């Protein structure tokens, strides 16, 4: 098992190496060079020269590449142009907010998606089933940023049940140890802050979780339908096991493989979907940082953000492969 993980981690290296080269070329492929693009209409020869010097764009390509790589290996993407902050530090500081939101979204997607798909499969070709299939097709077609707005309008503005934006009420004070607000409120033993953090998570979590929910429900349904026809499920029934045991031990567990794959893939996609959700709910996570950087052409932030999220994405998929092996002994042994 350890060897398997190590081998997969080694496979990560060429991918990240390739990505870093792409990101290097990418910034230098800008029309008129990065400095011109950065300054836009404010570009004057003096300012361009100034920027080129400051960022080393005036040096020979090969020197630039070597310095670039030396820094990338240390995960140093330099200073953000607009925020004047260290990119890596800023990404790390905001990362917990994005993870917290993604986890809330995944919790919602898995918690609702798997039971929904399972029940649809058990009631195949009934109205419940047709309804679930239709709902999931609509679910994958809803733009996150639209759903976010609608949820905000209905539950925050009209009904006033939940907060509109942010992660915590502005008046609340919370000591940040981890930047995970739920965790920090637990550490501070502050029930009010905990409830406040959770309330703030609900709407963005639902908005971000809806697409994965729809996809997970569909995959669960298809997978369970397939497993329900398998011989060992009939064996389990023939053994006189209670229906709940058959469902839990034999049907769900055996349907998990494709579900886990999809959950993994979706977790990676959540991180990029967070760019939109965070913008709608002013969440202040990595996503919002990247969205802003894209508009401001803040290249160090984009480079760092893309690299950071790509690593997370690949690592999540690695975790999925390991989980696989735990679920299916046939993979574990070979």
């Amino acid at each position, binding site marked *: 098992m350890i060897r398997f993980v190590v081998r997969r981690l080694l496979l990560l290296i060429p991918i990240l190496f390739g990505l870093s080269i792409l990101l290097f070329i990418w910034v230098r492929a800008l029309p008129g060079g990065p400095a011109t693009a950065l300054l836009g209409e404010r570009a004057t020869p003096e300012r361009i020269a100034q920027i080129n010097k400051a960022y080393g764009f005036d040096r020979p390509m090969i020197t630039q590449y070597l310095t670039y790589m030396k820094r990338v290996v240390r995960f140093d993407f330099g200073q953000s142009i607009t925020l004047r902050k260290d990119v890596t530090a800023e990404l790390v500081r905001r990362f917990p907010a994005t993870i917290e939101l993604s986890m809330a979204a995944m919790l919602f997607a898995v918690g609702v998606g798997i039971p929904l798909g399972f029940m649809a499969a058990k009631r195949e070709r009934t109205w419940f089933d047709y309804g679930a299939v239709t709902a999931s097709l609509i679910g994958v077609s809803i733009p996150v940023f639209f759903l976010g707005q609608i949820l905000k309008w209905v539950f925050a503005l009209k009904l006033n049940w939940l907060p509109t934006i942010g992660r915590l009420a502005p008046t609340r004070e919370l000591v940040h140890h981890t930047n995970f607000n739920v965790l920090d409120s637990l550490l501070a033993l502050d029930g009010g802050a905990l409830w406040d953090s959770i309330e703030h998570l609900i709407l963005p979590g639902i908005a971000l979780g809806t697409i994965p929910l729809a996809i997970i429900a569909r995959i669960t349904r*298809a997978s369970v339908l397939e497993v329900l026809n398998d011989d060992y499920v009939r064996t389990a029934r023939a053994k006189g096991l209670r229906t709940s045991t058959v469902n839990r031990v034999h049907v769900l567990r055996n349907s998990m493989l494709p579900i886990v794959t999809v959950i993994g893939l979706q977790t990676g996609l959540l991180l990029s979907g967070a760019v*939109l959700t965070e913008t709608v709910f002013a969440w202040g996570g990595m996503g919002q940082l990247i969205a802003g950087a*894209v508009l401001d052409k803040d290249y160090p932030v984009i480079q760092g*953000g893309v690299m950071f999220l*790509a690593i997370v*994405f690949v690592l999540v998929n690695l975790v999925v492969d390991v989980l696989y092996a735990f679920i299916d002994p046939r993979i574990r042994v070979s």
Partner: protein
Amino acid sequence: MSVLTRRQRAEQLNDPDVANSLTREAWRRIRQNPLAIVGGTIIVFFVLIAVFAPMLAPFNPRSNAWFDQIRPTSIPGPSRDHWFGLDEGGRDELSRLIFGARASLMIGVLSLGIGAVAGAFFGLVAGAFGGWVDSLIMRLTDILLAVPSLLLALSVAAVIGQSQTAIVVAVAVPNVPLFARMLRSSMLGERQKDYVTSATSVGVRRRSLVMRHVVPNSLAPMLVQASLALSTAIIDAAALSFLGLGSADPGVPEWGRMLANTTRLLNVAPHLALFPGVAILITALGFNLFGEAVREALDPKLRR
């Protein structure tokens, strides 16, 4: 099982051109699938609106002739003159929606076309040449697939700047590795099949074989991927426009930006968020429904 399927099988056997009858069979299944009918109707409706936008729109979408009616606290909703109300800039919402359909269709089709053609080209090259060419292309797709698609599109758009071209290219790029992989793997799959082996054994040249047999047989999965990807392309294009990466000219109607502009105005004019959002939703749903139906038609085993 039933009488019907036995008759169908007989028909298929009698048909001299099996491939032809397979597509005909798939076509028949598409027409009988309610998903396809609903999806197809939505697509046709959407395309008609996009194509005939100048004739259908009651007003010029860029004209802000009614700006004097706009107040910070109230924006006129649907009325007899303006069926969908006015937008925050005093323009006719319905006309903007209609022209927005045009932008969406154009961006969606162009970006998908570019992505699919480029992807198919790389996949074809990889599959046909094999060896180091194949390895190189596949490693490149690995790298591109390691970045979530919206993020990839965002970073591409960031390079090009605010324009609809940026959105087209940005949405096209994440499709390239997908189509490249798909075409390559279905080509490799086809190559294993008996008819290719037998054709090579009677001396058909490899290149002509690839062009004449392998490519047409790989088209079916491409078609499915294309119809599903169109839905994603339309949503992603709207997302980029929502984030402010669309046309630099704010007068150009784009569904994504129309939504973005109303974020601050939710309490004042929720209809301004509702209309473009629902437009994106219905269009994406149409392509999703149709793509699903095509997938089911091509592979009845998936029918669940």
